[in-house]
């Protein structure tokens, strides 16, 4: 069962330039989502997107790893709202490696493994036990 996401890209720009795009809140707001990110370990921040049913559009984050110029990671949580249990509690990490004149960016998004437990508890609370027994396991298995 596939549980982690890993994507790699090589950009023709030097690591220092890419690092700025990954850690400057104004730059992040341009290519990722509107944010109040600060490159400070432990800093809590949000990404804001358009709300959709079941998601208030806010991703709650906290910087968990910071190695200037090389690596930044944050906890990435989202769900129906701030006072409801998150349906997603994961970790995002960007790692930069020099590649010739340019930069290799490695993006990892991990922690989907705990999702089944979270979903199960949310669905249980919502009282949809029958749906849980029948459809949901198949849906989760199909997610590989």
């Amino acid at each position, binding site marked *: 069962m*596939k549980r982690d996401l890993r994507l790699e*890209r090589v950009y023709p720009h030097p690591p220092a330039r890419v690092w700025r795009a990954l850690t400057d809140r104004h730059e992040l707001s341009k290519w990722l989502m509107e944010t109040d990110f600060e490159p400070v370990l432990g800093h809590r921040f949000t990404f804001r997107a358009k709300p959709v*049913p*079941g998601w208030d559009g806010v991703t709650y984050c906290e910087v968990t790893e910071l190695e200037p110029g090389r690596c930044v990671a944050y906890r990435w949580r989202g769900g129906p709202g701030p006072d409801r249990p998150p349906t997603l509690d994961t970790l995002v990490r960007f790692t930069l490696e020099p590649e010739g004149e340019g930069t290799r960016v490695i993006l990892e998004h991990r922690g989907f493994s705990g999702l089944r437990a979270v979903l199960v508890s949310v669905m249980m609370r919502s*009282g949809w036990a*029958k*749906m849980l027994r029948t459809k949901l396991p198949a849906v989760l298995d199909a997610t590989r």
Partner: protein
Amino acid sequence: MFRALADPTRRAILDRLRRREHGVGALCEPFAMTQPAISQHLRVLSEAGLVRSRRQGRERIYSISPRPLRQAFDWLAHFESFWTDRLDALGDHLDDDP
């Protein structure tokens, strides 16, 4: 979608539709609710993409649509496409402002 699922009547409607398709009239029977009230719930379910409907004579027949539910829980696929788009956007951003 989670908002649509949050209501017990709507979950009961979905549960009935899971077995087979129904018209609004037949859906009203087990619930102590008026047809407009049930229609309102069906509208919410329909807007969330959880049910679909077709006309049969003068009646509208509702059936369950499992695909959105499957997609909603398919986080990996969702984020794979999200991050692919964002990494493209990062490349464009770097090209525009080197």
